[in-house]
Structure formats: structure tokens, C-alpha cells
């Protein structure tokens, strides 16, 4: 009994990149007579095979230009593979990006109907869903305004509210989390949880290892068009993080994050209500610096503090911060930090790996990071 939702067999994709603008008949004729190929072959994907099982939350990880988006477009049926085959079982969302077909000159309302039609809904369906969509996007007041008067955040909210109506068995999501504020990201995460509950198959492309680890049940790592590794999300996340640290330290670039300055973070000790964070720093020149750290939950920064105006940071040394965890709700938190030049606030070094710590507690009446006091008044 096969239970795959998507099966990719030995898929390769090549693009012809024209040397110069070749889309005129003249150059086509000239090249034909010169027996010259007016293009170069670029191999975007090389012999990739994998299977996505039904109900899996499947992550695709890779750097920019590694072929992730090409792969997603092949899955969506927007591209046709040069070699190999893509089998899909069940209905599949046809879009890979939010707000496809949005037109700035149309009103929010008109865009909802247009976008809905692109997702395969009839006007009747859309009339039924219209109110839910608008409510979810929290944009009632703006529906009769042209989209060009919307902020980008509003546009994303509207697009997302429509997109989640898509009733397919398999969903493709490309970096949706890269946009929107923290509240919106939380909505995305909630939606992902719902999808998992419903047993939908999701293919999810992201740079965000936290999100990959949190949601995915399986992941693959793609590099330069080839499938490097396939395994559990934490495995993939480790490989990806490792490779990318290598990259940033290998190149002796003159960039802002030069080796002359370094910063590292360690959890020194953790007690019931306190996390002692140790921050070590190295700076070759004698410029005055300051250190900033940020506490993250679910990839979103929830608190930041710096030594600016409190302590002088010069040369090599270490400094501690005592984080009182009474302020935080239960969950997994991460700490990252950066070393900044005092005079121009330029970032000269950042921690290559975030440190994790857990805060105990699972009070169902509380959510997100900040622990609010019981200040109810009836």
C-alpha cells in the first residue's frame, strides 16, 4: 500500500540562460546562421528524488539559489521537469506565494474575489467566505479602498486570509514567515498547527530552522541543485547550521562581521528563577564597543537589552547577564547576541549559534512569552 502524496523521481531541471537579450527574431536568425547557441545551460536541479507521505509536514531547506523555489514550482506544476517525473496524489494548492494576482488598482474587496477565483473558488463560494476572510484579516474598514493604499503588512494579512481558505489536500508554502509582524507570524504558526491537526500534507520551504524544527516531521537539505541529505528536522537543521557557519568563517571577508571581532554566548547556570548568561567577546582594535542580547521565542525576539551607557566594552573579556525567568511563560527560549561599535552603532560581530534554555511551566491560561500577573478584576 503506497501512501505517498508527492513522489519526485530523478527530477532534473535545466534553464537556458540567454547570453544577451535573445528574444528578438534578428538575434535568433543571426545565431542560427552562426551555428552558435545563444544560451548557456544552467542546471537548477540535478537528479533529485524523494517522497512526501500523506499527512507529513515536509521541510525543504537550502540557501538562496540552491534550487528550493525551482523544486517548489515543479511540485506546483508551474515548471515542467527536464528529466524525471513528479507524481502528485490528491489536490494541490496551485500557488507558491501569497497575494498572487493582487492588483494595486483594485479595491480590497475586488482583489479578494479575483484571488479567490485564482484559487479555484466560484463567486458564490466567495460570497459565503467573504466575511470570514475580512474578519480574519481585520481589515473591515479598508475593503473599499484600493490596494495601493494598503501597507505591505495589510496586503500580506489579506493575502494570507484568502490563501488559508484553499481546500486542498497538499499545501505548498514558500517563506511565508519572512513577512509580517510578530502577531501575524503567530497567526501563521497557529494555522500550521491547525493544518497538522487536520492531517494535511504540507511542503514548507524556509530558512528559519526554528520553524522547521517546530513543525516539520521530515526535511531535506538541498545544495546547488542536489539533494544532500534527507532526515529528521533536527538532523537537517544541524547540518544546515553547521555548513552555514563554515561559510561565514571560511571567507576572510573584509565585511562587518570580520574575525577581528568575536562574540560568543553560553548559559553559565540556570536555577529555578534565574538564567545566568555568559557573553564572551574579543576585539582586536581598541574601539569602544557595546553588547546587545536578545531573547527569542519561536524565532521572534521578545526582549532585548544592551550594555549601552551602562558598561564599557573594550578589547577582550566577558560579561554576565542574569535573566529573571519569573517574567516568562513556559517554553523554549533562545538567546542571541551582537557586538556593536559605540561611535556608529555598527554590528561588528554576531553569535553564530543561538543558545537555548527552557522555562518550566504549562499554565494553560497563559500564552506567548511575557508572563502577566493575575490582575483580573471581576
Amino acid at each position, binding site marked *: 500500500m503506497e501512501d505517498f502524496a508527492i513522489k519526485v523521481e530523478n527530477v532534473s531541471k535545466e534553464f537556458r540562460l540567454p547570453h544577451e537579450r535573445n528574444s*528578438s*527574431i534578428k538575434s535568433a536568425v543571426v545565431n542560427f546562421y552562426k551555428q552558435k547557441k545563444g544560451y548557456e545551460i544552467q542546471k537548477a536541479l540535478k537528479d533529485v528524488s524523494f517522497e512526501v507521505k500523506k499527512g507529513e509536514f515536509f521541510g525543504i531547506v537550502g540557501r538562496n539559489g540552491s534550487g528550493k523555489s525551482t523544486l517548489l514550482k515543479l511540485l506546483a506544476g*508551474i*515548471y515542467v521537469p527536464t528529466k524525471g517525473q513528479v507524481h502528485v496524489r490528491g489536490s494541490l494548492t496551485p500557488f507558491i506565494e501569497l497575494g498572487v*494576482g493582487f*492588483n494595486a488598482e483594485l479595491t480590497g474587496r475586488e482583489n479578494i474575489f479575483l484571488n479567490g*477565483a485564482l484559487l479555484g473558488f466560484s463567486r458564490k463560494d466567495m460570497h459565503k467566505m467573504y466575511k470570514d476572510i475580512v474578519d480574519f484579516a481585520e481589515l473591515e474598514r479598508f475593503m473599499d479602498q484600493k490596494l495601493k493604499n494598503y501597507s505591505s503588512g495589510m496586503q500580506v494579512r489579506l493575502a494570507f486570509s484568502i490563501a488559508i481558505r484553499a481546500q486542498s489536500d497538499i499545501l505548498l508554502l514558500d517563506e511565508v514567515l519572512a513577512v509580517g509582524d510578530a502577531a501575524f507570524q503567530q497567526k501563521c504558526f497557529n494555522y500550521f498547527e491547525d493544518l497538522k491537526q487536520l492531517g494535511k500534507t504540507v511542503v514548507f520551504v524556509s530558512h528559519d530552522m526554528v520553524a522547521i524544527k517546530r513543525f516539520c516531521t521530515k526535511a531535506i537539505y538541498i545544495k546547488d541543485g542536489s539533494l544532500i541529505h534527507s532526515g529528521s528536522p533536527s538532523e537537517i537543521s544541524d547540518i544546515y547550521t553547521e555548513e552555514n557557519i563554515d561559510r561565514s568563517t571560511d571567507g576572510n571577508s573584509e565585511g562587518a562581521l570580520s574575525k577581528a571581532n568575536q562574540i560568543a554566548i553560553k548559559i553559565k547556570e540556570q536555577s529555578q528563577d534565574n538564567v545566568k548568561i555568559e557573553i564572551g567577546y574579543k576585539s582586536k582594535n581598541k574601539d569602544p564597543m557595546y553588547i546587545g542580547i536578545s531573547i527569542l521565542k519561536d524565532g521572534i525576539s521578545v526582549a532585548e537589552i544592551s550594555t549601552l551607557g551602562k558598561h564599557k566594552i573594550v578589547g577582550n573579556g566577558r560579561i554576565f547577564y542574569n535573566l529573571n525567568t519569573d517574567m516568562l511563560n513556559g517554553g523554549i527560549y533562545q538567546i542571541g547576541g551582537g557586538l556593536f561599535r559605540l561611535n556608529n552603532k555598527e554590528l561588528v560581530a554576531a553569535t553564530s549559534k543561538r543558545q537555548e534554555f527552557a522555562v518550566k511551566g504549562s499554565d494553560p491560561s497563559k500564552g506567548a512569552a511575557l508572563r502577566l500577573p493575575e490582575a483580573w478584576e471581576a
Partner: protein
Amino acid sequence: MRHYFSKKNRALVAELVRTDFKLRYQGSVLGYAWSLLRPLFLFVILYVVFVRFIKLGTDVPHYPIYLLLGVVLWNFFNEMTVQSLGSIVGRGDLIRKIRIPRWIIVLSSSISALINLFLNLIVVTVFLFINHVDLLRTTLWLPLILLEIYVFALGLSLFLSAAFVKFRDVNYIWEVILQAGFYLTPILYPLTKITNVTFQKLIILNPMAQSIQDARYATITHSDKVITAHRLFQGGWFEYIPFALVALVLLMGVTYFKRQSEYFAENI
């Protein structure tokens, strides 16, 4: 075949056409009224220039209407092919990011043109009544003639829109061909002005010339000054060449479009 006209696809075509219309007259004060005003003014201009000044076609009954119908049909053909030609490239954002049947984009832009044609024909009908043109029984043929023009234009549209993705010269070339076609088709002048019968025959082989002449014959007058393919070839099989051309163009357009459409997303 049925899935081509599935509920999904119909809804999408309707929505794309609706969007097209909303955007077309955006920011204009008179809005949709322009769809009717344009043929109206066209009629006035044609009337003044070709009936009052140049006095062409004095021997053809109801010449002003005869003129208007020809121009309206040609304009439809012109508008549909030009709009469809750029439709695929113009909707590149959709094609690169969503899987929808590609032909739907061409179809929806052709339907926009078709709606415009019907608005124009309303104006023509009004003038038919004002000029006391007797209704002919042959008017029943008009829908079929319109269908012929539509199918011809659709075949060309599919071919042109797909070719335009690869070769951006196509729109200039097509512009020139349309210009030539406009003067090589008896739209502004009656075909009787061309005295050489061989030339007459060559001209009427063009499906646009044949269909416009047939439309005029069918709706306005049976006068023997209206030369149709049937009259010219006197029932010989030559008169079917325009229809064969239409079928050929459609077949060619569909085949080419189908082959190219798989690569639209990467070529745009």
C-alpha cells in the same frame, strides 16, 4: 473536453474579464459609457468623411451603415488580436507563480473584446433602425459569421501570444500586418472599386474580407453591389478557402500554444 469548461475555469474566466473591464475605464469620468461613445463618434467621423466629403459607395444602399459594420468588425478583430498578443506576457506575474491553465488568460482577453463587440453592435443596430434598413431574413446568419471571425482571431491570438513570450518583435510585426490588412480588406471602400476580378478574388480569400462582406450582405442589403465570396466564385469550391484558412489558423494556433505553454513560466 468537459474539464475545459469546469466550474472552476468558468469562474476564473469571469473574474479575469470582470477585472479587465474594471481596469479599462478606471479613472475616467464617463466610465463604461465610453464603450458606446467610441463607436458612436466613429460613425459620425466615417459619415462626414466618406459619405459627405469623399462620396464613396453612392451606389450601395445604406452605405454609412455598411461602412460602420465593416469598421466595427475589423476593430473587433484588431482589438482582440492585439490584446491577446500581450496577454500572456502581461500576466507574467500570474504565470510564474500559480498553476492555472494558460489558455484561460488568452480566452479571457478574447472575451473582453467580444463584449466590446456586442456593445458596438448595439450602436450599429440603433443606426440600422434610424436609417430604416429593412430587416433581412439572412440576418440570422450573422452569429455564424461572427463566430467565424472569433475563431479566426482566436487561432491567431493563441499563436501570437505564445510567440510573443519568445520573440518580443512579434507585436511590431503584427502591427504592420494589421495595417496592411486594414487597407487590403474592403472596409472603407466598396470592393466594386477594384475593377480587376483576379484582384477581387485574391482579396476575398482573406477570411476577414469574406466575413465582413458576408455580414454586410446578410444584415444590410442584398444589392448586387455587395460582392461576396459566393457571388465572386459562383459556387465553386474556391469559396470555401477562407473557411479552410480559419480552420488551419486555429489548428496551428492551438498546437503551437500547447507546445509552448509548458515553458511560459521560465521564458517570460
